C-alpha cells in the first residue's frame, strides 16, 4: 500500500468568506473558488477544500465542534487503491467512486478518502546556507534574503488528530494501512509516516476526551526556516493570530509556527523535517515543553538598536 500522505483536508465551516480570506492570506491559491467555497492549493497541488457546513456535498460532520469533514490521502497507483479496498472492505463499507477513488471511515469515525495522488512533482531548491568548513551553498553574489522573497507553502505536510484512543488509532493506520511509528511522545501519542513517504511524520495523534475528537492542526512545508519566519511575520502583520512559535521541534526536527484559524483548528508553517527509512528505531520521550521543542521564540515588533544616546540623556 503505497500511501504518500494527505492530498487535501476537507472542512465544513460556519463562515465561508472568512475561511477563504484566511486560506488565501496564509499563502494558498484559490482554485475554482466561489462564494460557496472550493479548493485552495499549495505549490504542488495539495491543499484544503472548504465549504459551508450545511453543504450537502460534504461528508457528515464529526459529533464534536470540529470542522474537519474528510482527509483525502494520495496513493501512488490504482493498484494501491485496490489493495486498500481489499484490506478494509472485510470489516467496513468501502465506497468506490466513479473516478476510482475510495471512501471509508477509520476506526474512530474519521472520514477518509484515498485517490491516486494529484500532487505535482516540485523542482525547486531548498533554502541554502553558508557555513565555515562546508562548501558554500550560495555562491558569490547570491543573496539569502530580500524584501519580496517568495515564502509560499510548497505542500501539505501533516495532519494532527485529537483521538480518544491512541491504540485504536495506531492499530488502524499501522496494521491496516502500513504506516510506521517514527517516534512517540508518551502522554500525547505517536508520530506516523506512511510507507511511500520518508518524512518523519504525516500524521500525529494526541489523546483527548471523546468530545474533542477532530483535527488539532494541519501543516504545510516551506522551503526552509527563513521562508517559514518570513511567511509567519507577513501573516502576523496582516493581523492574523500566532498561537505557538516560531520554534523548532525535537522529534522530526522541523521548524514550526502555528496560527489560529476560522476553520476550527491550527494552521502550521513547517520546514526542514527529518527523513527516515525502515532502519530507524523509534524514540520515546514523555510529552512536555522540553520534549516538544529545542527552541521557542515569540514574535515582537521590529526594532533596531541605534547609535546615539537615549533621548533625553545628559550628554
Amino acid at each position, binding site marked *: 500500500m503505497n500511501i504518500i500522505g494527505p492530498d487535501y483536508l476537507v472542512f465544513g*465551516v*460556519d*463562515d465561508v468568506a*472568512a475561511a477563504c480570506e*484566511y486560506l488565501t492570506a496564509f499563502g494558498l491559491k484559490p482554485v475554482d473558488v466561489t462564494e460557496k467555497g472550493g479548493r485552495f492549493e499549495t505549490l504542488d497541488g495539495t491543499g484544503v477544500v472548504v465549504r459551508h457546513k450545511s453543504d450537502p456535498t460534504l461528508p457528515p460532520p464529526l459529533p*464534536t*465542534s*470540529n*470542522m474537519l469533514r474528510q482527509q483525502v490521502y494520495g496513493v501512488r497507483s490504482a493498484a494501491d487503491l485496490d489493495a486498500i479496498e481489499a484490506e478494509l472492505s472485510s470489516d467496513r463499507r468501502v465506497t468506490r467512486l466513479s473516478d476510482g477513488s475510495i471512501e471509508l471511515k477509520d476506526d474512530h469515525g474519521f472520514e477518509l478518502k484515498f485517490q491516486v495522488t494529484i500532487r505535482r512533482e516540485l523542482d525547486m531548491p531548498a533554502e541554502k546556507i553558508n557555513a565555515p568548513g562546508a562548501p558554500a551553498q550560495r555562491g558569490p553574489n547570491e543573496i539569502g534574503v530580500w524584501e519580496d522573497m517568495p515564502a509560499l507553502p510548497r505542500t501539505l505536510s501533516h495532519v494532527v488528530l*485529537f483521538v480518544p484512543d491512541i491504540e485504536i488509532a495506531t492499530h488502524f493506520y499501522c496494521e491496516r494501512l502500513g504506516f510506521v511509528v517514527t517516534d512517540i511522545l508518551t502522554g500525547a501519542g505517536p508520530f506516523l509516516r506512511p510507507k511511500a513517504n520518508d518524512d518523519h511524520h504525516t500524521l500525529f495523534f494526541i489523546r*483527548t476526551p471523546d*468530545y*474533542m475528537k*477532530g483535527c*488539532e492542526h494541519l501543516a504545510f512545508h516551506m522551503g526552509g526556516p527563513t521562508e517559514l519566519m518570513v511567511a509567519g511575520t507577513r501573516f502576523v502583520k*496582516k*493581523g*492574523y*493570530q500566532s*498561537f505557538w512559535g516560531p520554534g523548532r521541534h525535537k522529534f522530526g526536527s522541523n521548524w514550526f509556527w502555528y*496560527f*489560529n*484559524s*476560522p476553520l*476550527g*483548528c*491550527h494552521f502550521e508553517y513547517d520546514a526542514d523535517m527529518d527523513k527516515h527509512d525502515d532502519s530507524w528505531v523509534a524514540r520515546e520521550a514523555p510529552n512536555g515543553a522540553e520534549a516538544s521543542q529545542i527552541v521557542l521564540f515569540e514574535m515582537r515588533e521590529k526594532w533596531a538598536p541605534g547609535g546615539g544616546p537615549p533621548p533625553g540623556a545628559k550628554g
Partner: protein
Amino acid sequence: MQNDVLIDERPGLAPAARRLCHVKDIGEGEARGFGPLPGSKRKIIVLRRKGVLHAWLDACPHYATGTPMAWKTDAYLNGEKTHLTCHSHHALFDMETGECVLGPCLGQTLTRIDIVVGEEGDVFVAAPAEET
C-alpha cells in the same frame, strides 16, 4: 495611549492607562479586542449583547496559560455571531456568562474583567488588570 508603556505599576494604573474604548465603539452583537493593558500579556475583549457591555480576558481556558482566541484582529465571534469563539480548537463561549458551551474547555469559564463607563462614555477597566 502612547504613554502607556511608561506606566507599569500595578495596582493603581492611572485611569488613562485603564481605558479600553468608547461605548460607541462596540455595536450590538459586536466584539473587539483592546490592550493589552500595561503589565498584562493578554488583550481584553469588549462585547455588547442585548445592549449590555461585557468584558473578558482574551485567554482561552483550554490551556493553563490562557491563549489568545481571535483568528485575526477583532475576529472573536463564530460565523453565526452567536458565541465568543476560541479559534484554536473552536470552543464556543456564552457571550454574557463566559461559559464554554461546546469544545475542549466545556464547562470552564472565561475570566471576566470588571468595567466602568465614565461620564463621557469611555469604558475603563474597574480593577487592576490581572497578570496572565
